[in-house]
């Protein structure tokens, strides 16, 4: 197995299921020191499961997970990380100032209160109890708590869910600040825009597998291309064997094909089905490409693991 010196967290060949539902189907993944990595995928893709494994909240069904080359559950690891969880709560009866004080007490070298308050824009809310906060304010509190230990590695699981546009932009700016101060950030999101705006590297996952990986630019180059729509008697299986075809999907009567080389695919299509009609050829943006990559019915004969 390869080891790179700047690897900060590693998921090696991990399978994980909840009962009969497969969440991760053989994931390999590494996080490198200093990068902002976005785990991008639709809901249910396995993002939160990956984060839970890296945080030591779950043990992998099979395979291996390390953070700082150690078991994620070890105390020395937990002192160096911070996390904003998707499912997490907080005692309703303590004020923000008290919560921050409590979480700082857990760490040998906590971040300063003033830093935390500024980073999460909490100055006006310090005496407010958690139960009196709005969803967005609560998110900001969780952001501050994630930073309480001055972490080298920060996990943000869907950090901007429920935030309005302005708060979202503000959080993005904070994440960039953190990255500039040398911290490693792993964030999960199902918004391509968010991943593209923040990440040095994007890992796209779906159905518990990594389906694409690269810098935002690389990813765009890889997945973008042309989209061909037509009505044809050729089967999806046949079309998939054609040269240059990346994805095929049946949409009602028509068939949608993604390709980097539309001309070549069109020549092959007409050679096999002269009666092909209702032809349309268009471009594919990153957003569409992402949707196509992860859209549920794209691989219609892929095994249906996520039955539940």
């Amino acid at each position: 197995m390869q080891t790179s010196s700047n690897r900060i967290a590693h998921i090696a060949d991990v399978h994980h299921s909840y009962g009969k539902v497969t969440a991760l189907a053989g994931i390999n993944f590494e996080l490198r020191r200093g990068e902002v990595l976005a785990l991008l995928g639709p809901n249910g893709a396995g993002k939160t499961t990956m984060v839970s494994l890296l945080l030591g909240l779950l043990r992998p069904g099979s395979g291996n997970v390390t953070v700082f080359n150690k078991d994620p559950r070890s105390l020395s690891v937990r002192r160096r990380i911070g996390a904003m969880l998707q499912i997490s709560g907080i005692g309703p009866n303590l004020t923000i100032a008290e919560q921050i004080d409590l979480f700082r007490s857990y760490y040998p070298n906590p971040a300063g209160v003033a830093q935390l308050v500024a980073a999460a824009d909490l100055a006006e809310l310090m005496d407010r109890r958690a139960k009196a906060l709005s969803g967005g304010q609560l998110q900001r509190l969780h952001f501050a708590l994630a930073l309480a230990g001055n972490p080298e590695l920060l996990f943000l699981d869907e950090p901007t869910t429920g935030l309005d546009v302005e708060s979202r932009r503000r959080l993005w700016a904070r994440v960039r600040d953190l990255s500039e101060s040398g911290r490693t950030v792993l964030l999960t999101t199902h918004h391509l825009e968010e991943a593209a705006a923040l990440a040095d590297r994007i890992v796209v996952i779906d159905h518990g597998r990594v389906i694409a990986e690269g810098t935002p630019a690389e990813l765009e180059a890889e997945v973008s291309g042309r989209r061909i729509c037509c009505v044809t008697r050729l089967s999806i299986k046949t079309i998939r064997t054609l040269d240059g075809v990346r994805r095929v999907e049946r949409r009602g009567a028509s068939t949608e094909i993604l390709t980097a080389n539309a001309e070549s695919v069109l020549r092959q299509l007409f050679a096999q089905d002269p009666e092909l009609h209702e032809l349309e050829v268009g471009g594919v943006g990153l957003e569409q490409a992402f949707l196509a990559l992860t859209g549920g019915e794209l691989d219609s004969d892929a095994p249906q693991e996520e039955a539940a």
Partner: protein
Amino acid sequence: MRSSLQLQSELAPSRRPNHVMHAFLAEVRYELIANWRQLDFAMPTVLFPAFFYLFFGVFFGKGSGLATYLVATYGAFGVIGTGLLGFGVGIAVARESGELRLKRVTPAPPAALIGARLVTALWFSAFILFELFVLAAVLADVRFERGQWLALAIILLIGTLPFGALGLAIGTRVSAKGAPAIINLLYLPSAFLSGLWIPITMLPEFLQQLALFMPPYHLAQLALGVIGLDAGHPWQLHVGVLAGITVVAGIVAMRGIRR
């Protein structure tokens, strides 16, 4: 001078020499504060024993053996309640809200999380015992020697522990909504069958035998032993059962918390 120091400590990351102790004390302080701010949750647990005692001990039993007996058993009833409900419902709520999950990601020492709840439960237990002792001494003419009051208080306070462990074990395995119901379903009948509400000798013989299988019975018997009203089993039996419960429930609870 003071303000500049404060400013410095707020801006720069500060190294704490004894941060585990610091974490423990912070957890205890905030657990107490949080409980104080929602006293209405704790009210029934804290007031019922005194309320029952006022009714059965003071009005019915004033000056009789009943008033004496019930100080010990309502004391047991009270501390068992803070242990079972305080720990059990508390942990079920913390688990379901995701608070426990969030804390598991931090380096918060698990002992601090449990310890803070224990200190809080002991605080409530002490308050319940204080209420009962005052009612007994002032209104029901119960007379013990100073050493007996003290022994009673110590035994009952320590008695919070096995039931706290039991509460934790249950609370890590049931939902926050179900926890109070499930715990009360175990707590109230077993309290009755252990002779906490009425003297155990007033129950039919077979129920008195059955009581040996009720955890509250053993704490009550230890407390009654102090004032010479126990059923005469060796104290080692009661201590052994309660210690066993603490260990087994403690293990079950720790497993549940790690899930």
